[in-house]
């Protein structure tokens, strides 16, 4: 398609990469958090629950600013990870981190609900067959939760594709590195005559997100069929 310039294509590719990794890497944490919130009763549970929801509650700019303070090159966590070769500051990894944090509450919510729907009796049955808690989780809870995980992941992906406020505040808007589609749209909207360029990018993001959504609904239905609704 020649109606997107090379820089715009770059933004699309980057957004996809950012959203993919944001989703993929936050999934294990999302699962763990959702499982803990759904199944464990520990002191501070409500605190964790609240923390997870924070990025939903706060204006994205604030989240981005807090990320900048914590994970920036001069931030405490940034300085800790720096020597390990892990750097988020002003790199696409940082955009992924910002997107992951912003999408985290959505992911956890969706997964948590589907974990709560898994019958603990099946988990008990697995235990009597010799499966340790971890195995039970991996072989019973996890597969039965798959539709919810899928839903959570695609929600997170969609959110990650659209995230802007936290990303630009945390890692700026560096073409080819941190300029995602939403930041590109933002940049276009900042200049006169940029609306049509912005509109083209908007359409691209809609197409991608819709495709992800449809794919996930289809996958969820297939999984649900295989797993057998209400069996």
């Amino acid at each position: 398609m020649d109606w997107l310039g090379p820089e715009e294509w770059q933004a699309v590719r980057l957004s996809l990469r950012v959203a993919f990794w944001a989703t993929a890497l936050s999934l294990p944490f999302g699962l763990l958090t959702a499982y803990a919130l759904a199944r464990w009763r520990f002191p501070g549970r409500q605190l964790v629950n609240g923390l997870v929801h924070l990025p939903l509650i706060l204006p994205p700019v604030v989240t981005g600013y807090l990320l900048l303070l914590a994970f920036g090159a001069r931030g405490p966590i940034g300085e800790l990870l720096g020597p390990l070769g892990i750097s988020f500051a002003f790199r696409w990894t940082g955009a992924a981190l910002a997107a992951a944090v912003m999408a985290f509450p959505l992911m956890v919510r969706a997964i948590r609900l589907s974990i709560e729907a898994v019958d603990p009796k099946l988990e008990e049955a697995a235990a009597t067959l010799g499966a340790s808690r971890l195995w039970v989780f991996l072989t019973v809870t996890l597969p039965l939760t798959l539709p919810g995980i899928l839903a959570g992941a695609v929600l997170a992906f969609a959110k990650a594709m659209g995230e802007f406020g936290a990303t630009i505040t945390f890692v700026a808007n560096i073409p080819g590195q941190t300029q995602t589609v939403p930041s590109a749209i933002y940049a276009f909207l900042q200049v006169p005559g940029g609306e049509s360029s912005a509109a083209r990018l908007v359409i691209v993001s809609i197409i991608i997100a819709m495709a992800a959504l449809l794919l996930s609904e289809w996958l969820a239905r297939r999984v649900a069929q295989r797993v057998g609704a209400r069996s």
Partner: protein
Amino acid sequence: DQITVFAAASMKNALDEIARTFEDETGHTTTLVYAGTAVLARQIEQGAPANLLVSASVEWMDYLEGQNLIVPESRVVVTGNRMVLIAPKDQAKPVEFNENLDLDGLLVGGLLAMALVDAVPAGIYGKAALSHYDLWDEVSDRVAQADNVRAALAFVALDQTPLGIVYASDAHAEPRVDVVARIPSHSHAPIRYPAALVAGQSGSGAKAFLDFLTGAKASGVFEQHGFSVPGG
């Protein structure tokens, strides 16, 4: 060299053009990073990989200088701007912007679009000008403040508000608005876009770009986009 320039978002059109010319002439490559000045300043404070900052706000440049985050000697004003009062195209006749301005009459119950009047430079200048002519108190509760001056422009361009106060450069580029008054620049602090090399990141390329920005070619481009050379 590879030069990363952090620049106020409202300068995108002009700077993109200048950077292209610069690249053609020097063989350096530039990466232009646009965002609100506040965001950029904070990021530089956190070690952003910027060689150069072009700010829309004198205040933020002062702040960075105070933190020793820029090279003070390199600080220059690259261009300036004026404030204008705008209206949707063909809806208002030109007026004089002074203490006799009948804002009430012009607003006919509508709102005055501006950038955030206490936070964003364009809003701060505009509020200063209105105050200067004792017009502020009269309209203060009828100001629709946008998060940036572009959004304020959009309100007028989309005919959502009958009036707006924006930079001349913005009005210049937006065919859907008419300038109904130029705001006398003495009514507010001078509008300047300071640029400086970022401390510890200043390569020769960055220095060259900074020089280029203050050069005649750049001034021409700025002027084409409605910016006005300081003092001019």
